[in-house]
């Protein structure tokens, strides 16, 4: 297991290097003179020069890259053009908000995705199965931020059950946290719940047709043991694959959902930066999320090995 962990970490290194390179390269994609473009048409020559030095655009490219990587190694993502503070500090301060929202959405996804997928597989071709699969497909087809807007209208404006936006930290008031995160978490989780339900169903159907499941039934094991121990544990690998992808989508979905519900998380920070073209914050934001995703993928790969001895002994 230890060698597997080391090998997996080593193989992630080139990807991490490229991920940081892509974030760095973003500044070259700004059409024309990046400093002029970011400063806007009304900027004075002094402001222009200021931005140019701030971003290091007056240096040759290789010096810029060197700076970028040297600063990264020190945990320095540069200075925001507009917030007057370091990008890393701004992101770190808002990360707990986003993590608590995506964590909540992930719990909903897991519970309802695996639950409804399992029921659909066990009641194959019944009306329950068809209803679950149709709901899953509809869920996959909805724009999640739009669902958030509809939820705000129905549950906050018309019924008045929830606030229309804002955020209360769990530490300050668990009830307040629940009130402010329930709607966004559900809107966020819906598409991924659909995806996970479909995956759970199809993997479970495959497993249930295996000989050892028939043996388990034949030797008189109770249904819950057959389903929980023999069947569900064996769909861990495909489900984990979907889950790894889902976490990424939940995270990027949170970016948009946070601005729908006025939640002050990393997503809001990035979207505000997008609107005001605060490039260092955009670069830092997507770099952090890219690195987070690479980490999630490593964790998923290692979990494969933990769940499935065949993966462990493959090499």
């Amino acid at each position, binding site marked *: 297991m230890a060698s597997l962990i080391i090998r997996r970490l080593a193989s992630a290194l*080139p*990807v991490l290097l*490229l*991920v940081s*390179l*892509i974030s760095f390269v*973003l*500044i070259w*994609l*700004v*059409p024309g003179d990046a400093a002029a473009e970011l400063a806007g048409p009304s900027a004075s020559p002094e402001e222009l020069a200021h931005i140019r030095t701030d971003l290091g655009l007056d240096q040759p490219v290789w010096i810029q890259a060197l700076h970028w990587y040297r600063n990264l190694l020190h945990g320095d993502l540069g200075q925001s053009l507009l917030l007057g503070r370091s990008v890393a500090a701004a992101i770190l301060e808002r990360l707990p908000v986003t993590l608590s929202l995506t964590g909540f959405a992930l719990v909903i996804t897991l519970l309802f995705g695996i639950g409804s997928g399992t029921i659909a597989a066990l009641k194959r071709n019944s009306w329950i199965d068809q209803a679950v699969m149709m709901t899953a*497909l*509809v869920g*996959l*087809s*909805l*724009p999640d*931020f*739009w*669902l958030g*807007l*509809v939820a*705000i*209208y129905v549950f906050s*404006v018309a019924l008045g059950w929830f606030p*229309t936006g804002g955020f209360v930290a769990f530490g300050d008031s668990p009830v307040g946290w629940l009130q402010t995160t329930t709607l966004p978490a559900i809107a966020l989780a819906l598409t991924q719940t659909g*995806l996970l339900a*479909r*995956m759970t169903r*199809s993997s479970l159907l495959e497993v249930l047709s295996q000989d050892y499941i028939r043996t388990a039934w034949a030797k008189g094991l109770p249904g819950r043991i057959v389903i929980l121990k023999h069947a569900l544990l064996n769909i861990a690998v*495909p489900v984990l694959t*979907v889950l790894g*992808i889902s976490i*990424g*989508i939940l*995270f*990027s*979905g949170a*970016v*948009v959902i946070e*601005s729908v519900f006025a939640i002050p998380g990393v997503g809001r920070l*990035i*979207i505000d*930066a*997008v*609107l005001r*073209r605060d*490039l260092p914050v*955009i670069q830092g*934001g*997507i770099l952090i*999320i*890219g690195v987070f*995703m*690479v980490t999630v*993928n490593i964790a998923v790969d290692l979990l494969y090995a933990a769940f499935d001895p065949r993966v462990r002994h493959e090499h």
Partner: protein
Amino acid sequence: MSTEDILADPAVDAARPRPTQGYPRLRRLLRHRLFMTGAIILVIVLLATLAADLIAPYSPLKNDFRYRLGAPNAVHLMGTDNFGRDVLSRVLYGGRTSLAIGLMVVLASTFFGTLIGVAGGYFSRLDNPVMRLMDALMAFPGVLLAIALAAVLGPSVLDVVIALTVTYAPRTARIVRAAVLVVRRMEYIDAARVAGAGHLRIIWRHVLPNSLGPLIVQMTFIFAVSILAEAVLSFVGVGPPPPTPSWGNIIADGRSYIPSAPWISLFPGLVIAITVLGVNLMGDGLRDVLDPRLKLEGR
């Protein structure tokens, strides 16, 4: 029992392999209820947007301040927005922008994705560097990378298409590469090479046609996510610029009026949902017929 007797048995006769007639996959597709439902939905949406000039009751751009934020009624079926513009007309014309973006992203990402996937899968020396770069691009959650790219490139239809293509082409590349890796090991590829076929001919005549199934399923998937992604990009302000309507920017325009005039955002979102559902139904049908083993993947 002689061989003739066995063959004469109707049960055995029914199971005997026969040369396929016509297009069995096409026939299966046409009998696939969900696929046909999706296809009909998509055709209706396509026709409605293409015929916007004929069926839209008003100009999508004409302001009429007497009817600002009007609720849906017999004259304005989907109500009016904050400029008094008819939402139904805007949705009809907006479909052109949204569907055109979806189509362009499908074409561009299929072209570049196939090129990269074949390069990686067929020429093993290119495989590692090319696919590591694709891994890195896929490390970013799709919509987020598109938002960052569109924010940097600037808001225009072309920039949105470029941003989404960079985001989704790597996913196509990975699928094509996987298919090519399987096909490349087949004996008929060796046979073609022995017969003197060059790389390009082998790729074009043998590798690509045999990788087509997963590729087509992937194309429906990209069409669906591009329509959704256009809406997201518009919502965060980096989509196709107003006043030209797109489904996404109509939703975005209506956002501030959710409490008083929810219909502005409601209807374009519903139309997106119906269209994407249609495309997803077609994708599921194609998956059933072309590639039953293919699992849900990507995004």
